[in-house]
Each structure stands twice: as structure tokens, then as C-alpha cells.
């Protein structure tokens, strides 16, 4: 028996969401009295060490050039590992890869899936009960997984990552993907230009602006504030629709759903579809010149006034604070 955790390397690092999953899987292994096994493709020694520090007892280290981000191949690889190691629970991040792979594996293994877990499971006989957000963040549901094999996709940023001195046993692992005929052929690939910022789904601090900023030429002050905080920039949907900002910065129901520690919303009215993507944030600051803006009802801190004068003042205050801290 084991808990199997799917993990990934991205831009030379173990993905933060993967470290969260290893922490999470290790905790479940403890609950069920079994071992936590991480599976990873193309990791170097440092990355393997980090997976160990996050709590993996064993790591299945793959070296497979073919797998890439193909959901069919990844699913087949995890399926083989799950069978070989009698996985009771398989953990994925509920990120773009996890959303493509976990459902496929769920169907293949007839393993019940909770897609977007936000808390640790509780054990109830042979079932696990896991909480997940529903109705676009307006409510939480407790799901029970009753199948023998269980799948949990963990919503990123649900828990802070904890690293210890643990070292994992490393097993060089190979999978046979010959029988899997994925017909998906990659023609072109582009990275989002994030200008060195932490990618939005992983970001703990986010500075977001809306139509109140009037035009793309005014984003300089938003970026400056973000830089001062080491935050990532985001925007409301109309801003992306009008091409003021790139599409990958759009948050909300139709865009990316995020749950950073701090979300600063500037010149955004707070429409319900916008809130759906950000209401999981730990702390929300709203800056708006209309004191009746609906966003204030969903904020922890509010400032009424003109964004164009407030943003530079806030940036100054942040810089002063940072200078004082160092």
C-alpha cells in the first residue's frame, strides 16, 4: 500500500504546487499508516533532494523524453506506478496538468476523484472525506470517496510548503509507453511573458487592476507597485478583452482562479464573476474611487480615492517598509 504523488519540474525547479502535494500526500500517508511515494520525470539531484525534504519517503525517478505534457502518456505512467506500488490514494495538483490527467486516470482506474481539494481528508472507515469549493467559491462541499483507489487533486496555495531534513529513497523508474498511442503532435510552444514574475497560479502576492486604470499606458504604476512587493500582476476580464494586458493575466470565473495571501484590486468594480476567481484570497485590499463599489463588501481593507494618486503613495510606503526591514 502507498500514497502516490505526481510531481513536476518547471523552469528548473520543483513546482511549488508539487511540493504542496508532497506535503499533503505525506500527511495522508501518516494518517493511513503507509508510505508517501513521489513520482517525477527528469529531475536532477537537487530537485530530488527537495522532494525528499517535502516529505516523500520514496521517489520514483523517471527519465522519459517522450512524456512531456501529454495527458495520455502521463496518465499511463502514473497508472503503471500506481499498480506496481498498490497506491491507495493518488495525489495531483489541481493545476493545468492535473486537470487534464487526474480525470483520465480516475476513469481508467475507477478511482473516485475530488477535483480541487482545499483541506486534508478525514478517514471514515474505507472512505475518505475531502472538502472542495463549489459554486465558484461561494460554498464548500464535503465529498466522500468510496472507491477502493482514491484520487485527490489539491487546489494550489491551500497550504504553505513545509520542508524538513527528510531524505527520500530514490528508485530509478522506467515506464513502458509503447502501447499508448497519443496522436497529439506539438507544433509550437510559447511561454507566457511574465517578465520574471512568479506565475499567477503560484503567486502569493498579486496586484490586479481593472478598467478604472483607463488604458494600457497607465500600467507602469501598477507594475511598479507589484515590483516593490515582489508580487505578480493580474487584471479583470475587460482589460484582457481590450488587449490592455495579456490574456494569461485575466482572473475570475472565465480566467484564472487564484488564492494568493494578498490580492490588491485597483479600479475593479467587484462583479460576481470577478470575485469567483479571487474570493479565496487570504487578504483582499480594494482601491476604488467609488465608495459604493461592490468590491468593498468583499474586502478586508479598503481605500476610497483616485488610483492614480494612491498607487504611487502605496508603492512609496512599501519601499519604505522594505528598506526598514533590511
Amino acid at each position: 500500500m502507498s500514497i502516490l504523488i505526481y510531481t513536476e519540474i518547471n523552469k528548473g525547479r520543483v513546482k511549488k504546487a508539487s511540493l504542496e502535494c508532497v506535503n499533503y500526500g505525506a500527511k495522508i500517508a501518516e494518517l493511513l499508516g503507509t508510505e508517501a511515494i513521489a513520482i517525477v520525470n527528469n529531475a536532477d539531484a537537487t530537485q530530488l533532494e527537495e522532494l525528499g525534504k517535502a516529505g516523500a519517503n520514496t521517489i520514483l525517478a523517471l527519465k522519459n523524453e517522450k512524456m512531456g505534457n501529454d495527458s495520455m502518456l502521463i496518465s499511463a505512467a502514473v497508472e503503471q506506478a500506481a499498480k506496481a506500488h498498490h497506491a491507495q490514494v493518488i495525489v495531483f495538483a489541481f493545476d493545468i496538468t492535473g486537470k487534464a490527467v487526474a480525470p483520465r486516470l480516475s476513469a481508467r482506474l475507477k478511482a473516485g476523484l475530488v477535483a480541487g481539494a482545499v483541506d486534508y481528508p478525514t478517514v471514515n472507515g474505507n472512505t475518505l472525506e475531502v472538502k472542495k469549493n463549489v459554486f465558484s467559491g461561494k460554498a464548500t462541499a464535503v465529498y466522500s470517496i468510496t472507491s477502493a483507489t482514491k484520487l485527490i487533486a489539491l487546489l494550489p496555495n491551500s497550504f504553505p510548503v513545509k520542508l524538513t531534513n527528510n531524505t527520500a529513497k530514490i528508485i530509478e523508474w522506467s515506464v513502458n509507453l509503447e502501447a499508448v498511442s497519443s496522436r497529439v503532435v506539438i507544433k509550437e510552444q510559447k511561454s507566457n511573458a511574465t517578465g520574471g514574475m512568479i506565475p499567477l497560479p503560484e503567486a502569493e502576492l498579486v496586484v490586479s487592476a481593472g478598467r478604472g486604470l483607463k488604458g494600457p499606458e497607465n500600467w507602469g504604476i501598477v507594475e511598479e507597485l507589484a515590483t516593490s512587493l515582489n508580487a505578480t500582476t493580474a487584471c479583470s476580464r475587460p482589460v484582457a478583452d481590450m488587449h490592455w494586458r495579456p490574456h494569461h493575466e485575466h482572473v475570475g470565473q472565465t480566467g484564472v482562479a487564484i488564492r494568493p495571501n494578498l490580492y490588491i484590486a485597483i479600479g475593479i468594480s467587484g462583479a460576481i464573476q470577478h470575485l469567483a476567481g479571487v474570493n479565496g484570497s487570504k487578504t483582499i485590499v480594494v482601491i476604488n474611487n467609488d465608495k459604493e463599489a461592490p468590491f468593498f463588501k468583499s474586502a478586508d481593507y479598503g481605500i476610497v480615492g483616485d488610483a492614480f494618486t494612491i498607487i504611487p503613495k502605496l508603492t512609496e510606503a512599501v519601499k519604505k517598509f522594505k528598506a526598514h526591514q533590511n
Partner: protein
Amino acid sequence: MKILVAISNVPDTTTKIQFSDGDTKFNSAGVTYVINPYDEWYALVRALELKEANLAEKVTLIHVGLADSDATIRKGLALGADDAVRIDGEGPDAFFVASQIANHAQAHGYDLILVGKETINYNGSSVGGMIAGLMDLPYVSLATKLELAANKATIEHDIDGGTQIVECELPLVISCAKGMADQRIPNMRGIMAARTKPLSVVSANATDALTGIVAYTLNAGRTTCKMIDENNMDELVNLLHTEAKVI
């Protein structure tokens, strides 16, 4: 070329969510239901555009649900889908829905199966991948562009940290996101025509229940917003550090 579009019936985005039966059921009293936005604006409209460009012959809607979904299905027909199938049954989870759709698709042979990115009620992003898994078909998720030529689909889609353009021989399953197409409003002629378009109802197959919902709770909204003077940004920074502990 036949396209199957899976549509889900969901409470309108502005619905005030309430539960009943000791917080074990969603309370649908007084709720307005609509086609899940991603299924309608992106999957269905793109399928219709492909048909209008003579790249597909037929667009069929499929829905797994009870008779009270029929008005929503008719709306999809009014937008221009040719016919619809409702699998009459309400399952406990995405696996139930996916099993029903996969069974139907296996028997009827579609070249393309389109689903939405996620439903706005259960936010699972699961049904499409499950259908693909059950049918052993490729799955391309979060498509923002889709072109068809001969027996091949060219798809632009979001991946972790970027975008990818891929090609795939048919058949396959695609989940659709913003960018695929623009919202359409049904016209009077479409609404009239929808009344007589075929909507067949078939009974659901038995499937294993893998998960179920035990209870719901409403997420507490924020109750107090601390207002800070615009000339006192030092105070805000201080509160973010000492009170909220986020910086």
C-alpha cells in the same frame, strides 16, 4: 464530420446559493438555470461556426440530467444545434456523467467531442478527461482556438506557463475556454425552429458511484472592511504586516 457538444445545466452566475435538507442538497427553488457558459459560448458556438464553414455536417447536443433540463437543451437547439440527446438520469458525480456520454458516443461514432472548461456549479474540470479516458481518446484541455481540416484538428491551448499549438487526428475530446468563439444570442427563427428539432431521451446505464457529496456549507463572506485614509498608506502597509501577516 459529426460533432458532439456536452452541455450542462447550471444556476445562473448571479444566483444566491442556498442549501436544503440539512445542508445536504442544493436548493433549486427560484433559481434560473442556463447552459453552462463555457459549453455555450465556446464549445457550442465554435461547433456551429465549423458547421457554417462546411467543415462539419452535424452538431448534436448531449446532456445528462432530468426532464427539468429540457428548456436549457432547447436553448442550445435555438442557437443552431441540429438535434439533442438527454440521458435521463442524475448521478452522484462527474464519473456518472462521463460514463453516460462515453457510452452514447461509443455507440454513435462522433469525430469530435467538445466540453466546456468546467461547470460553474461543481467546478470539476473532470468530465472531458474522464470521457477521453473511458473511450481511450486523446484529450486536449483549455482550447482557445480550434481549426479543422481533412481528418485533423489544429488546436491552440493553454499549458502550464504558456500556450501550445498542437495537431491531432480525429476523433478526440477537447475542453473549450475563452477565445474559441464569441457569445451568440438566439434569434426568433432559431427559437421557433428549436421547438420541432429532435430531442431524444434515453435511459441512463448503471455505473459505480465513486464519490458523493455528504454536506455543503456556505463560505462566509468578509464581514468588515477596514477603511484606510488614502494619505495613510504607511498604516495599510503596517496592517498588512502586523495584522494580516501577508507581507
